[in-house]
């Protein structure tokens, strides 16, 4: 807009404008299960104020959100629900794995915990920390904005289909035993 108030043109490409709009209106779907969820709430609350970055419109229905923040430990029992929510989100969608547990299982290398959500779905940004401080989550969102704006190729990752994710949830034992079977047959040959 010019100084006198009359409308003027901003020369841009449609792709650029779309990216600009996308990055500044990320609507998060918070999937907070444990400690990280509390820090995520801190990030949204008054002191850290995530709305400064256009990402405060929390939507608890996945169909209205485009950024899934997985904050907290995901157990084997929870994994199918998380995948369901991911599948329900519309494209374009981005995923932030907040904290050590959702990135890698963290300190919970146990019989009931999924060792990182990237076993069942693609992840764009990993945030380290147990739990990450709110600045960490804000940094992750800013970094995600860069990714969107620059159109950077998404991180190299397995774009798992739903079927593949199901297989992954069926867990390593299946993979290991099948590998063992292959080895056995090789040995026989």
């Amino acid at each position, binding site marked *: 807009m010019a100084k006198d108030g009359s409308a003027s043109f901003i020369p841009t490409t449609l792709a650029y404008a779309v990216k600009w709009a996308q990055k500044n209106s990320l609507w998060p779907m918070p999937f907070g299960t444990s400690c990280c969820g509390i820090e995520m709430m801190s990030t949204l609350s008054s002191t850290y104020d995530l709305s400064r970055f256009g990402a405060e419109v929390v939507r608890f229905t996945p169909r209205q959100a485009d950024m899934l923040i997985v904050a*907290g430990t995901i157990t084997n029992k929870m994994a199918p629900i998380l995948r369901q929510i991911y599948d329900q989100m519309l494209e374009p969608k981005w995923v932030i794995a907040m904290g050590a547990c959702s990135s890698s299982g963290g300190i919970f290398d146990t019989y*009931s915990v999924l060792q990182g959500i990237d076993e069942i779905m693609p992840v764009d940004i990993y945030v380290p920390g147990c739990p990450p401080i709110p600045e960490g989550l804000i940094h992750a969102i800013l970094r995600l904005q860069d990714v969107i704006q620059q159109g950077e190729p998404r991180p190299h990752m397995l774009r798992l289909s739903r079927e593949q994710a199901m297989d992954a949830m069926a867990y390593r034992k299946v993979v290991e035993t099948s590998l063992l079977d292959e080895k056995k047959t090789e040995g026989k040959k």
Partner: protein
Amino acid sequence: MIPLLQQAFPNFRIEQDKAGEVVLWIPTTSDLIPTLQRVKDDREFDLNLLSDITAYDNIDHKDGPLRFILVYQLYSIAKHHRLRIKLAIDEGVQAPTATGVWPAADWLERETFDMFGVRFAGHPDLRRILMDERFQGFPLRKEYDLKDRQPFPDAQDVRIIPKASLVKQEEPRTNLSDFYNPNVLVNIGPSHPATHGTLRAMCRVNGEIIEDATCEIGYLHRAIEKLAENKTYHQWIVYTDRLNYCSALTNNIAYVMTVEKILGIQITERCVWIRVICMELARIIDHLVCVAINALDMGALTCFWYLYHWREEAYTMIEGMCGMRLTTSYARVGGMMYDLPENFAAEMTKFLDGVPKTLDDVEKLLTSNRIWVDRTKGIGILTPEEAIRYGVTGPCLRASGVECDLRRDQPYYTYPELDFDVVIGSQGDVYDRYLVRMEEMRQSLKILRQCMQKLPAGPLWVADRRVQIPAKQDVYSKMEVLIHHFKIFMEGINVPEGEAYNVVEAPNGELGFYVVSRGGPKAWRVKIKSPSLLHFQSFESSIRGTKISDAIAILGSLNIIAGELDR
């Protein structure tokens, strides 16, 4: 207590544990229920509150030839004493259920079945509670490997086995014009804005009214108790942070207190006071979060902003104390990791002056707010008898009008020297729980003020070579100290054989750690008695007959923390 028990049960073995608590061994399974009923009803004992039911694996046969030892923790609200009842039971033998004596036993027995495979004869609904129903094996048995993850080939199904009572009407809902068919199931959670984590309730609704409900937990079962058997006592402190992550300091301290009891360590005066400060600070944070979230769920967003500001200030203080905001790991066996920072007194003064103003503001916004009162008064009423039967503790029990505060009744640390009131409600509804929490925060501030005045100087660490972590400057300059330091951290501290059950008045209720040691640096069994498990069990019955929106209010007021619920 012991002479009374000897008189009442002449043939039973009676022991005392390391902390001097009484253990009563039941000789045969058929004696269990009559004994429980007797100690509950007999006015001499009056053990009316069931704290916990658990078991431990006796695979090394130190406690007799049978495979499992069942443990019942009982508490008398009126007489302030505890009793632990133990029953040895072999694999494949069914134990009688205690659900007829206390309804609270329902979930506790289900958990024991889930983790150990001990079956309870006559239990109304014995199925897995924390693990998926397709899970094979019993994870807390010693032969089950910590990392043995199991495949669920059809994991995409989100399933729930409804209780038989959930769907009463046999006719399925096929006629869409039949608006008054009550056979409608509504699933709340696990991903729901009001469940804050991982709670799930399946409700059968008739219009807005919930006619029946069943809860499913275990979506955050992280095997913390199994980890306790695989980590040294020090290494496991970090896992206690992640139980009730709103008040991690209390968990740290409650756990190390238990280990100190087994070791027989008396910590220093300064350390005691610092621990009391930590626990009261944690109580304020926890109540701030609970009230803020409860109000937020009902649409009162302003209180959330107000209260979270002071929570952030408290976290800044905690960050100064131990370097972390949420997961503190501040306490150590025999001391604290660091002393208080230099600016702590000034920060605390600022905090003590600021919080009451905010509490007043929030009270102005809520206490006489018509919408708030309408939505909370008379909702989710727990009568005193009901609350005790369900094993409810903490602010929720006090809101029902039962005078029970472990800080006063079973005093630990310096609470006898401190002047504070036990806050009691009268109705036991959501509104009273809110009022109790608000007043408890004020009482905690009062305690903190006294603590800051009385905080003595002196050594922080107990002078006991078994547990004392050497100072860093000595580690770098003296050979013996370096070796000592290395041994403490690489091998762990050696805890003698024995057991202890230690409870503190955590913000949510009675938080207990039951530690069984068979010697060595790792625990044989650690059971966490979390208040949330029993609170959530009472949720099932207290939402019957309420509206769906009331269920949200009740859930917020119970302050269920998934980390300590599922462990």
